[in-house]
Structures are given as structure tokens and as C-alpha cells.
């Protein structure tokens, strides 16, 4: 491979540090870039959570020093606020359940960052995501990581072929424990830094509290989906996600003793529908914002469908309905081979063929086949 000019996105964590080092080892010209995404970048947080504190920027800088590569901080906070944080709030307000990490990859890391890098003369962006890029007959393919527990191909399923062509994921062929060991061998001080798990802009993990501050509280009804009976009150439908069981504030599960779940969120009426587990099963998914990681498939294809990060893959058939009104890219229709519980609009469905990511869509509607399985 020829020597490329590569931006290594460096969060200050272990993975992106090793990714940068590997790009350098591969002979590329590497520049480390930490993205300042927080509106208040100077705030120090105590833990290693989040992705944009001064401490994290400092950790990334020290790795770059050790690698002997130039290092810069690029301020993409305005774009992050608009494309990820505001989108996150708007999606919840509309009764959907977004995945902000996926949106960040789509809009920030492989759009704003990549576009800026290319405009400044770079060829590609490398990140510490666990996923593999394979040179296939029809171009670059995105595949699951070797470490299935860490696999992040789901949150990269929004990338188009053009974006993939400019991306490097140097960690996809290695397991996380090996990456930590490698970081230690390379003398990185952050080799034992804990992984980040939470949404980076909600460092305390209290999503409902964050949404309440952004949207404001609005009391509404909890309604039994089968009977239409009002069974309780809530402080805002955005605080609920299909499949959620805890935090419903019901004093009892129901006369039958069966557990109750959120089975629907009707944001327009600020209503949350409650029901038993059997109402949660979904087999049919309609998605929009369709993305293909390579050439779009023709006709109906047999795939594996994954509904959430680190969720299981379910056998399915999928086809692109290009006749759908009002959708330039068409609508994706996915039929799952068996029922899956807790599929919320707003989540992404990512399609796989073997380990290869075929494409993705944002779930708009779900339904259940009436025919017995």
C-alpha cells in the first residue's frame, strides 16, 4: 500500500492510541487529531468517561508525543451539538430511540472530520473502532471485528462506500485484551485507562434527566395498550423506550401478575403504551435513511439483522422498496425469521451477510406477522 496522509482520530483512550501507532507502523504519514466536541471543553471530569475533556485531550497528546507525530485539537463542537446532541433530543422528543454513537460516526467522524481532513490534504481517517475493512471484488467491504464481544461494525453500518474508501480501522483483527497489552508494550500511559461506556455528552448516565433539562417535563398518561385504560402518569413520553420495563412507576404489574413493558410511545399525544411481553414481539421492520456499505443488493436478499449495538444477529430477508413515496433512497423492508422484543423506532437495523455489513436503515415502523411461526 502506498504511503498515505492519515488523520488518526485520538480520543485519549487506549483503542485510538494503538490505532494511530499501527497506522504509523504501516508506513503512513500520521497526524493525531483530538476532536473537541464539548461545548465547555475546559471542564475536567473525574472519571475517564466521556470523550472530550481536557484530560482526555492531554492523554491523546502524550500518546502523540510518544509516537513522535504532530498533534492538534480540532473544534467540532458546533457540528456535534447540531448533528448529534440536538438530533438526539429531537428524536426522543418525537418518540424515537436514537443511537448517538452511530450518528457521530455518520455525521462527525466520517463527515465533518473526514471532509475537513480531505480538504486539508489528507487521504483518510483512522479510528480505534473494532471493525475490519476487507478489499473485496466490488470495492472495500466492512466486516465484523475478530473480537465479537467488542465488535463495533453496528455503529459503523451507516457509512457509505465513499466514506469507507477513506476509512481505516486498524484494530479489527485483534482482541481488546491484546490491544491493551500492545498499548502497555508501546509504553502508553493510558494502557489501563477504563473504557468509556456512556453517552459522552451525558457523563452521569442519566439520559432521562438530560432530556428533561433539554425538553422540559410534560405530564402524560400511561395507557394499557390492550384495553385503552389509563393506568398511570408519567413526566414526559421522551423518557420511555419500547421494551423498557423499569421506571414505569406502576405500583403493580397488573391483575394477572404479568410484567408490563413499554410497547409504544405516542409522542404527539405524549402517551406511553404499556403491555405484556407478548405485545413486544416484532417481525416486520420498515426503515428509512437507507445506507449501503457497497453496491445495493437487488431483489430480496437473505441477511442477518442486528437491531442494537452488541445485540444478536437474527436471520432475515430484506428488500429495498424503491416505490415508497417521499423517500429518495427508498424504504428498507426487513422480515425477521423470528420475533424480537423491544425494537424501537429510531434505532438502526444493520444487515449482515456473513461477517460483512451490507447496509443499514433507521427503523421507522415495526409490526408483527400474525401467522404463527
Amino acid at each position, binding site marked *: 500500500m502506498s504511503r498515505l496522509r492519515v488523520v488518526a482520530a485520538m480520543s485519549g483512550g487506549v483503542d485510538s492510541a494503538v490505532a494511530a501507532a499501527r497506522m504509523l507502523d504501516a508506513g503512513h504519514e500520521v497526524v493525531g487529531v483530538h476532536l473537541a466536541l464539548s461545548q465547555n471543553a475546559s471542564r475536567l471530569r473525574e472519571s475517564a468517561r466521556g470523550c472530550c475533556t481536557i484530560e482526555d485531550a492531554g492523554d491523546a497528546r502524550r500518546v502523540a508525543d510518544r509516537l513522535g507525530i504532530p498533534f492538534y*485539537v*480540532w473544534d467540532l463542537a458546533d457540528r456535534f451539538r447540531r448533528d448529534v446532541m440536538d438530533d438526539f433530543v429531537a428524536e426522543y422528543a418525537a418518540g424515537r430511540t436514537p443511537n448517538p454513537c452511530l450518528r457521530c460516526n455518520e455525521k462527525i467522524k466520517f463527515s465533518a472530520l473526514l471532509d475537513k481532513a480531505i480538504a486539508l490534504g489528507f487521504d483518510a481517517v483512522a479510528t480505534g473502532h473494532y471493525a475490519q475493512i476487507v478489499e473485496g471484488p466490488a470495492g472495500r467491504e466492512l466486516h465484523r471485528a475478530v473480537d465479537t464481544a467488542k465488535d463495533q461494525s453496528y455503529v459503523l453500518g451507516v457509512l457509505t462506500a465513499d466514506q469507507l474508501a477513506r476509512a481505516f480501522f486498524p484494530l479489527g483483527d485483534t482482541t481488546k485484551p491484546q490491544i491493551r497489552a500492545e498499548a502497555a508494550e508501546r509504553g502508553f500511559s493510558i494502557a489501563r485507562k477504563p473504557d468509556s461506556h456512556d453517552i459522552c455528552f451525558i457523563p452521569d448516565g442519566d439520559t432521562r434527566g438530560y432530556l428533561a433539562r433539554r425538553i422540559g417535563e410534560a405530564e402524560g398518561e400511561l395507557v394499557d395498550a390492550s384495553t385503552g385504560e389509563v393506568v398511570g402518569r408519567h413526566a414526559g413520553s421522551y423518557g420511555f423506550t419500547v421494551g423498557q420495563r423499569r421506571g414505569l412507576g406502576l405500583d403493580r404489574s397488573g391483575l394477572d401478575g404479568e410484567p408490563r413493558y413499554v410497547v409504544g410511545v405516542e409522542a404527539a399525544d405524549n402517551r406511553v403504551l404499556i403491555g405484556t411481553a407478548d405485545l413486544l414481539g416484532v417481525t416486520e421492520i420498515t426503515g428509512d435513511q437507507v445506507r449501503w456499505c457497497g453496491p445495493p443488493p437487488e431483489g430480496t436478499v437473505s441477511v442477518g439483522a442486528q437491531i442494537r449495538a452488541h445485540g444478536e444477529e437474527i436471520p432475515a430477508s430484506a428488500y429495498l422498496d424503491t416505490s415508497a413515496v417521499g423517500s429518495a433512497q427508498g424504504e428498507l423492508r426487513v422480515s425477521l425469521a423470528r420475533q424480537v422484543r423491544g425494537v424501537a423506532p429510531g434505532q438502526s437495523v444493520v444487515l449482515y451477510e456473513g461477517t460483512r455489513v451490507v447496509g443499514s436503515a433507521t427503523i421507522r415502523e415495526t409490526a408483527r406477522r400474525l401467522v404463527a411461526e
Partner: protein
Amino acid sequence: MPADLRVYLDHAATTPMVPAAVEALIGALSPAGNSSSLHASGRRSKALLEDAREGLAAAVGAHPSEVVFTSGGTEADNLAIAGTYAARTREEPAARGIVTSSIEHHAVLEPTEALVAAGAHVIHAVADTDGIISADSIADALEVLRTRSVRPALVSVMWANNEIGTIQPVAAIADLAQENGAQVHSDAVQAVGRVPLSFRDSGLHLLSLSGHKLGGPMGVGALIVARDAVIEPVVHGGGHERGLRSGTVPVPLAAALAAAVSHAVSVRKEESSRLVALRDRLIEGLLGLDLDLTVGGAWTPGSAHDRLPGNVHIIVPGCDADSLLFLLDAAGIEASTGSACQAGVPGRSHVLDAIGVSTDQPVGAVRLTLGHTSTGDDVERAISAVRECVPRARAAAGVLA
């Protein structure tokens, strides 16, 4: 890129130490002795310190007893502001007014702001679009205090701006401040060794200077304190430095600072002419690129009266400063915006805001500051790098719009 191929044009941030300062520093590092001790070693150390004090005083037109060594310009500014405010309000409780300017360094803005909680009224005199604070503007600020029945404790206006290099009418401002019964301070960190300057003739009570901006080491500076200044210490302890700045003075740093100031002042005239010529060539070269660039702040070709000899500040509409600085760095040109960075990101410049540069659209600003190592070749390389980098930085701003 090897360091010797890079073009360093950030002398206003820090400038390499001059040989005389390195020599003075090294020579004073090894001998033992605390300058407060009474034995022979102590006396030797004390003698070195007083030599430094006298050398520095002579170079800036002050009396040796007026030199208070500090850890740098920021500490000098803090002592000047907090120390004067405390002493003046103790003397006269109504003297709670502080007049400063909208284009001061953060080392002045922040300590004045911190005094608001203690009851200070801080008025920021307005700069004109050339980046000059006129005496009239100070008079207006004093008038605001008068309408609030607040007496002015201190007027603090920088001698030369760190970002756009504009030189302020300090003598006129000092006269006005004195007439109004205020103490008057000037942050002269960018000015000492670069413009003609005599503390004695300035009318100032207080003047701050910093070592590493003029060829001395980092970690040392001084506040020149007139003998009749009304000021009290901020840091308390063993009563060093006229009781105004306790703590053992780092004699080697003080010696190196004095050597650097003496050197800078002794070569100032020739160096100023040399730098003005380089500065003008650089500005004219950049403006001639036909890239819609403008100069930030006053600039009179051939003159060092309104702008520092080594300061070039260029406003580049339609691009982000960080993209431009990145591209220049990659091309081997070391420049800056001149405004404070927050977590590695250039912050919005209060100086550009103050002189009315519109920041609704992305406006890149790049400060190229020349110093004692700068050559004509540096200038030519900077011009050709800017020619290459600006269109690319603008393209990058386009994709992020």
C-alpha cells in the same frame, strides 16, 4: 521536518534566549548561597542579585529600588492590580474604580475581573478600529466612574498589544490618570526592548515585564514599582523585594533577565530598523497575494510608532484559524493567532471583537511575529506558504459550513 528548516515566526509568544542571557544564567546556577544569608556565599548571591537589579533598572530607566522580581509577566500584572486595589481602597474606601482596556492581555483582564466580587467597578476603555486606546477613551471611562461616584484606584493600559502589536499612547494616558488621582500601570511585556521606553519618563507608577518575551528565560519577570506607588503585597512571607513579593528570588533567573533586557535595549535601535523592514516586506508581500487579506491594527510602513517592529497580524476572511495554522505548521511555518487557546483550540479573540472585526463568518487570523533570529529568507518562505495555505484553509471551511 528538521528544526533548522522550520521558520519560527512566533517571537511574541516566546523568543529564543540570547547568548548573553544563557551565559548569565549558567554562570549563576552553580554557586551556593541564599541572597538573604549573611555569610560570604550569601553576600555573593546578594551581590549577583543586586547587579541584576541595577542592570535591569538602568536598561528600563528606573531606580534599582523600583525593581521587584517576579515569576513573570502574569504575576507582575496580578501584583500591580490586586496590590494597588487593596492599598488604595484601604487608604480611600471610595477608590473602587479600575479603568483598563478592551484589548488587554488575560493577565490583566482576569485579575481585574476577580476584583469585581470584592466591590471593584471595572470599566473597559474602548479601542478604535486601529486597535489604539486613546486618552479620550480613558477619559470617557473615568467619566463613567464619576457618574457612579466611584473614585479611580487604578488605570491599567498595555504598552503594546500582544495580538495585533499596536502601541498605546501610554504617556498621555498616564498624565490623565495622574490628574484624576489614579495609580497607573502598564503591561509592557511586549514593549520592553522593542520600543523606546523609560519608566522614569513614562509617568507610570507600575510597569510589568517578562523575561522570555525578550530573550531571557521563562519563569522570571519584574514589576517596576515607583517609590511613591500605593501598593501592598499579595504574596506574604519573608518580606523579600521591598516586602512586595516574598519568596527567595531565583538569582540565576534574575541575572539572565537583566542580561536579556540590557542586551535587547542596547541593540534596540538597529534591531528595530531591521525588523521594521522585514515586517513591512512581509505585510506587503502578503497583501500583494491578492487573497483578500487585511492587516489587523494600525500599520504605518517604515514606522514603529503605532505598531511593534516585529508584529504582523493578518486577517483572513473565510477560513478557520486552526486550519490555517495547521497547514502553515505542516509547511514549516510556525505561527499563531495570538489569542488565548483553550484546550488546544484557538479561542474567539476579544481583541478582534474589540476592533470590530466581524466574526459572524469564519475569520481566520494569523499572527506572524519576527524576532532576533528572523531573516529575509524566513519572510519570503512565509509569504509563499501563506499563498499555498489560504485557499486550502478556505476550502476546509467550505466543507464544514
